[in-house]
Every structure is written in structure tokens, then in C-alpha cells.
């Protein structure tokens, strides 16, 4: 299983239906991501990159095609099985951070550990370790409203990594940040990549994408370029 690619998409088609209207967003897309890669997906609005991210993130199912995650076909799994995949194998970082406003940084990081069934003591220890990894050990008791945007996004990254997922998925992670903070965050991504993390990032910013080792360009639901740097 370790030889299998982390992500293998074959002939992925996604059709949205709204009443009698059908809108095909992805047209038979193929994409393979190996362990340890740092990939940026780029494309203009409407190119299908958010749809692709939702499919890879198991928040949605493809209309056709196969999706193998670490050699396991997840295209046909039911909702509870997909929830378990998201819990154990995927870590999300969103543009808007998406932290629980009333929980402090540590409890936000501990949230996936809670669903994974860890006891209170172990949750605390692991959450503290993750916060230390993103350089926020001294902010554990601060609520999101007491943290800067860059700090909130680092809490989100710590949360995404809490269950040691196979892939870190980041959707416009620097979209809400100024350029200096963005640079810090991208250095954190590079550091994580250097430690062997597989990272898949969606962005429309060339400067951000330039930090990745491979850039996949989408246009109108097709891969139009795929280049290593």
C-alpha cells in the first residue's frame, strides 16, 4: 500500500444538477499525487479547482470516475465512511480559517482528536505538541478573536495535522493574509514539506504557487499544464 500514490484520480467527472439544468464542472480529469509532494493547483475562477478540492477532500463525491486515496477507492463510500476518511487521512486548511470562535486554540486543535476518540489528557498533550510545531505554544489559551489572522491560520494548520493525515489540503490558505504574513505561512508549509508532509494547495496567486514543487493548472475543468519546478 505504501507504494500506491497518495491520490489517484481517473476520469473524474462532476456534474451539478439544479432542476432541469445540468452543469458539468470537471470533464474526465486525471491527477496523481505521490507521497511527499508539494503541489499547487492554479486556475481562474470557474476552472473547477474548488470542486476538485472538495472531491479530493471527501466532502463531495464525483459523478463518474475513480478516486483512490492510499490505494483505497473512496468514490463509493457512504457518508459515515467518508467522515472517517476525513478524520484520519485528510487535514483541511481554509481561506477563512474556520476555527470555532468560542473554543481556545488548544481546543480547536483538539477537535479532530476528540472525534478520533482520544481521552482528555492525550488530546491536550497532542494538541500542545501540534501548536508547538506551528510556533504557537504560548497562545494555546487564546481564543481566535484574540489571535491575528496569521496566528489563526497556523492554529488551523495545527488542527489539520492533529490526526497525522496522509495529505494536508489547503484552499487559498493565504487569501485573507497580508504579504508578510503570507510569506511566514508559506515558510511553515515549506518546513512541513521538508519533514515529509504531502501538501495539496489551491491558489490563484502565482507568487504563492511558486513555493510549491509542482504546479497543476486547470482551465474549464481540464488539466492544461502540469509541471515540476
Amino acid at each position, binding site marked *: 500500500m505504501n507504494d500506491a500514490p497518495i491520490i489517484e484520480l481517473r476520469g473524474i467527472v462532476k456534474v451539478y444538477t439544479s432542476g432541469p439544468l445540468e452543469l458539468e464542472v470537471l470533464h474526465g480529469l486525471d491527477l496523481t499525487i505521490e507521497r511527499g509532494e508539494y503541489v499547487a493547483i492554479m486556475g481562474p475562477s470557474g476552472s473547477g479547482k474548488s470542486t476538485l478540492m472538495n472531491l479530493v477532500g471527501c466532502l*463531495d463525491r464525483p459523478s463518474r470516475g475513480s478516486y483512490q486515496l492510499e490505494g483505497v477507492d473512496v468514490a463509493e463510500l457512504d*457518508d459515515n465512511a467518508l*467522515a472517517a476518511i476525513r478524520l484520519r487521512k485528510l487535514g483541511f486548511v481554509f481561506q477563512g480559517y474556520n476555527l470555532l470562535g468560542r473554543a481556545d486554540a488548544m481546543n480547536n486543535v483538539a477537535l479532530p482528536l476528540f472525534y478520533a476518540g482520544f481521552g482528555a489528557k492525550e488530546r491536550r498533550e497532542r494538541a500542545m505538541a501540534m501548536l508547538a510545531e506551528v510556533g504557537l505554544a504560548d497562545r494555546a489559551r487564546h481564543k481566535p478573536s484574540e489571535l491575528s489572522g496569521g496566528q489563526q491560520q497556523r492554529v488551523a494548520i495545527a488542527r489539520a495535522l492533529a490526526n497525522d493525515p496522509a495529505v494536508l489540503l489547503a484552499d487559498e490558505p493565504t487569501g485573507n493574509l497580508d504579504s508578510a504574513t503570507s510569506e511566514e505561512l508559506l515558510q511553515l508549509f515549506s518546513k512541513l514539506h521538508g519533514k515529509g508532509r504531502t501538501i495539496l494547495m489551491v491558489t490563484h496567486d502565482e507568487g504563492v504557487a511558486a513555493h510549491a514543487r509542482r504546479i497543476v493548472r486547470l482551465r474549464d475543468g481540464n488539466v492544461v499544464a502540469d509541471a515540476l519546478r
Partner: protein
Amino acid sequence: MFRLLAYFDEALTSLWRNRMRSALTMLGMIIGSASIITVFGISRATTSGIESTFGSFGTFPVVVEVDPTQDYPDAAQIQYGDLRPVQQAEQGITPWVIPQWNRSYLTTYGNIRDYPNVGANSGFHDDGLSMSQGRKIDQADVDAAAHVCVITSDLATEFFGNGNAIGNYLRINGGRYRVVGVYANIKGSFLNSALGSSAIAIPYTTFHRDVSPSPPDFIFIYAPNGMDQQAGQIAIATLQRIHGPTAKYLTASTSDFLTSFESVLNIVGAGLAAIGAVALVVAGIGIMNIMLVSVTERTREIGIRKAVGASKNDITLQFLIESVVLALLGGGIGSGIGLLVTIGGVSLLSAQLGEMIIPYVLIIAIATCFSFLVGVAFGTYPALRAAQLDAIEALRI
């Protein structure tokens, strides 16, 4: 298990954050459960009080009297001579058939005068009464039509102060009667309800021969448990054999009274419980409403939880526990109030009734069960709605 506790903790935090809203939502539960618990507690305590009162005073008689509404009540008048045929007819059921008069007579001791009720008595001892002095009237007194009497403690105080009453002579309607006993406490007893707290009991044979030759007003029949109705029917049949089939008689027994009392209590209780149940349903709808609002408000939170890996079951459980906690808190507060009202009501009633038992364990169990059921019944739909939310949609908000 720890997960349930964590959800419980989470639910309390979330309810506390919206405490004004939670309190208003709980009001329905509080009113509903307080009324149900009050009705239930007081009716159970009253029943136990009445049963213990009657139970502690032994057997109560079936009372047979002439139906005063018939055309010729005089022709049906119970005569002293009717006693023996009725006693014989009742032999298979009970030997304790005695005549009774409803009279009061001038009674004096020295200069002290009063008009207490004077009742007829027999050697029947199973009246549950205890004596503070002396003895009860026995069979020998009845057989000899002896001039002896037993008096209540109120009367003993009136005539003899705090001193010894036994051996003193009372003049009742001109005759001299030796006091052989003083009843201790007659509160709640049949003697008290028939003759009042100042009463004298003398052998019925003496009463007939020396106090009043007039026909008795009642026949008392002390039948074993469950035989009251049969004993009454036998007495009526015997009396009709003597006075003719058109003569009409009434019978009343304590068990009749108890049964009718309990059925009234049950009807009143059922009516109030129905109102309480309606209140609980309304309360449940309030909980459902506020939970639906909560789900809508927390759509984004639900999306985050789902993205992080929460399953539908996790989300369902989280919201279900929140509504159950809401219902349990409201039900708990309401039951507490209901319990206090019950305790207050019981302390007022226990002046009239004997010892009343409040079924605390049953009350707490019922309150918990009902609150839990309301929380589950009305929390399930909002919880399922939360679980069905699409994570992508939820995060877009």
C-alpha cells in the same frame, strides 16, 4: 463514555452562553413538570394518608339505616327487636352487629354539666383505639347490661381535670355510670366522626334498657375486609322480611367511601395530569423550536466539525444531548418546585389526615423519565437536521 461527558459539558456551555433564551425555553418544562409532580405527589400522599388513617383504626362498620325518602318511613323503622334476626342472619360473616342511637344527654359530675353524645358499644375491640386509662367495654358488660362507661380524653379532662377518671361515677340522663376507661387519641377514628371528640360509650344493652327505649337509628355491622357489601345486603334482606318488601334501607360503608374518594381523586388527578401533559408537549415544541434556531445559527460550526471528521452520528448526538440537557434541567427545576409544593400541601393536609407518605423516589424517577423523553422526542428532528447539513454548503455561509 468520555465522549458523552464531553458532549454534556459542551451542551451546558452552549446553554449557558444563551442563558436568557435557555431559561425562557425551560419555562415550559418547569411549569409542566411542576404541575404534574404536584398533582401526583399530593394525590399519592393524600391516598396514603387516608389509607393509613383508616388502616390504623381497625375495622369500620357498615351502617344500615332507614331510607327517609320512601313513602312510609315509619313502617320501615328499625326496631330493637330486629337486632336478633339480623345478628342470626349475619352469623356466617361476623358476630358484631349492634344498634346505634344518635343522641346526647345531660351528663353531670358534681357541679359540672354537659350534653355529650352517648353511643352504644359492644365487646368489639378491634376499633384500633388505645386507652390512656382503664379498659374498653367488654362482652360481660354487654351481657349484664352493666352501668359502666368509657369516655374520650376531652371529656375526662372536662369532668376530672388531669386526675384519675377510673372508678368515678357520672350521672347520665339520671342514671349512675362507673367510668372504666378513657380513650387515648381518637383523632381520625370512626368514633370521632360518629360521636365527636366529647363522647361517652356505654353497652348497647344498657342503652336500650336504661337510657332510651326508643328504636335505634342505625345498625352497625363490623364485617371482615371485602365483606361490607355482602353484610349490608343480608341486613337489608332480613329487615325487609320483617317490615315487608316495600321497606327501603340505605347502607354505607367506609370502603364505599374510600372507593368513591379514590375514584374522585383519580378523575381530578387524570384531568390535571392531562393539562400537565399538554404543558409538556408545548414545552417540547418550545425546545424543538429553539434547537432548530440553534442548528441554523451554528450551521458554520456544524460544517467545520464535519470537515474535521465528525460523522452524522457525532453531530446528531451532540444536538440530541443538548436538547436532553435542556429538558432535564427544566424538568429538574420544575420537579423541585413541584416537590416543594407537595411538601407544603402535605404539611397542611396532615393536620386533617394521618401520616402521609410522599413517594420521593417515584417522583424523581417519573420526572427524570418524562424530561428525558421530552428531550429525545423533540430534539431528534433538529438533531437529524443538523446531521443532514451538507458540509460544503455549511462552510460557505
